[in-house]
């Protein structure tokens, strides 16, 4: 007992090392089951895991042993040996070999990762605060070009431009590009991809940095505004997977979720056929009354669609589809009819009557009378 007390430091350090190993073996928290071709990433992790694990255990236990063995004695004297070049060289060499063994497979897989197979089908992911949109190149296999602004004019008095990304053109498709007409636009955060096809994910962002990440796929890459980034993968099992944003993108970063389904080829094609192309989307847009169009513009410019969708999906705030005149449940359990009075109140003092299931994140907005009127007309139209 006395001996244990004397050597408690060595013993506790030893327990920390051994405990770490036991934790690793028994831990229920391991890599999630993979759903893509990147098993080699998992293999590289394992190689690194073993080399580092062995080094950790050896160094840790040696330290604990040395503390036990060479504990201070009045009569004791340490060994005076400033340097030991042979030992130091050997340790350097062994470490270097370990590093090479870890690095080599890593670089080989990386080479694979950055070179997309030529037969890969393309899908574009568009990130925005705080949701996802997707685009397929359509029959011609070529994405139409996009832009954030149009009609940019420079002059000594400044630069003028018109926004090109609006609720009527959520992808910012550029006018007059024939490749864009057949592009399939998916303006919701649900993506389907086919099994066993090489898929190149091309990514862009409307606003800030995002990162398209499905943990089971292993691959991820940031989406950077002003740039197009990419990665590729091949799905290896069907199922439903969560899409996460892995790069801090503002106050609702954690809400930026989506779903990716890996389908069989037939299911995927059936789904893809049911989606609209850019040409169809444009054709379906009937001209709006001027006041409704103005309301849409107000909503566009004030960023309402960042949180409120028009298609029934809940993003950060409740959807506007069918909102007008509907009965809504508030977070205190009471109900209220979403009439003009309630909606105006929710714009001016948004956090007073919260809809159940939504947080108090909206900032109050003050509109001019004519803007408010237009916005309300637009909301009324959308509900139809």
């Amino acid at each position: 007992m006395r001996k244990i007390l004397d050597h408690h430091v060595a013993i506790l350090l030893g327990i920390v090392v051994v405990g770490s190993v036991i934790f690793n073996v028994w831990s229920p928290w391991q890599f999630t089951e993979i759903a893509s071709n990147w098993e080699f990433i998992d293999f590289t992790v394992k190689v690194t895991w073993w080399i580092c694990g062995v080094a950790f255990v050896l160094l840790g236990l040696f330290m604990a042993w040395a503390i036990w063995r060479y504990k201070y004695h009045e009569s004791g004297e340490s060994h005076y040996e400033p340097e030991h070049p042979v030992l130091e060289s050997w340790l350097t060499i062994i470490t270097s070999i370990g590093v090479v063994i870890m690095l080599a497979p890593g670089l080989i897989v990386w080479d694979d990762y950055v070179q997309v197979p030529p037969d890969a089908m393309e899908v574009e992911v568009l990130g925005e605060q705080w949701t996802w949109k997707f685009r397929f190149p359509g029959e011609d296999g070529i994405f139409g070009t996009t832009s954030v602004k149009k009609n940019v004019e420079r002059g000594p008095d400044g630069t003028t431009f018109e926004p090109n990304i609006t609720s009527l053109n959520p992808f910012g498709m550029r006018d007059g590009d024939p490749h864009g007409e057949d592009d399939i636009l998916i303006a919701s955060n649900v993506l389907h991809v086919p099994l066993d096809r090489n898929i190149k994910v091309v990514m862009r962002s409307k606003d800030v940095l995002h990162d398209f990440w499905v943990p089971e796929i292993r691959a991820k890459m940031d989406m950077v505004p002003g740039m197009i980034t990419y990665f590729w993968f091949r799905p290896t099992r069907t199922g439903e997977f969560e899409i996460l944003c892995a790069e801090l993108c503002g106050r609702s970063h954690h809400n930026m979720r989506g779903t990716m389904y890996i389908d069989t080829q037939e299911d995927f094609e059936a789904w893809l056929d049911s989606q609209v192309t850019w040409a169809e989307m444009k054709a379906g847009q009937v001209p709006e009354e001027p006041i409704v169009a103005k309301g849409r513009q107000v909503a566009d410019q004030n960023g309402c669609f960042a949180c409120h969708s028009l298609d029934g999906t809940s993003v950060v705030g409740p959807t506007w589809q069918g909102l007008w005149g509907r009965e809504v449940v508030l977070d205190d359990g009471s109900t209220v009819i979403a009439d003009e009075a309630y909606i105006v109140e929710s714009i001016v003092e948004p956090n007073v009557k919260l809809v159940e299931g939504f947080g108090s994140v909206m900032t109050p907005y003050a509109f001019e009378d004519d803007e408010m009127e237009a916005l309300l007309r637009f909301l009324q139209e959308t509900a139809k």
Partner: protein
Amino acid sequence: MAEAAQTNQGPLTTIVDDWSSDVTTFKAVPWGKAMMWIFLLSDTFIFTSFLVSYMAVRMTQTDAWPYPSEVFSLEAFGTPVPLLLIAIMTFILITSSGTMAMAVNMGYRKRKVAVFWLMFATAMLGLSFVGMQAFEWTKLIGDEGVKAWQNPMGAPQFGSFFFMITGFHGLHVSAGVVYLLLVAIRVLRGKYDNTSFEIVEITGLYWHFVDLVWVFIFAFFYLW
């Protein structure tokens, strides 16, 4: 170099000796001078970061970049002469390095009055540089419509980088002018009579550095 090591008197051996000696690493280098050198090394990294950022943005720019010899031309005797003003400014700054070097030389000989006037001349040349820079800025802003955030001729980054980097350099020159005048007055008043005139040399180091930086700015902004 191997030969030098064998005879124990080559430059490499001297460096090794200096670095392995006690008390000071750089022999006969006063503290202030050593500190100025290290500061300038740090400052070099600031200007390098500015210029590398400028290069990176310019090379990846899709918008048009203005043609420097047109933007920076000056009307002389009825015809536009490209880079006329810049040439004069550069000439002035390099001349000021010359007067500074002469001041340092006089400092070694402890000729106070000569040191004062040479440093004063250096400061005046620096001041005229800053003045011309102000003139160039007003011309660019007023006549050409280039602002830090806009540029009627193309990429707005042209104005952003130009004003930021030349402005930062101009601040260095202005600070240098104040520094020069302060030291010059102190020299004249005899503050350093009983010690050495190393402060003149230290001021000179800073001034030459500011000059050198200008050469790079000149090359990257006006000649590229």
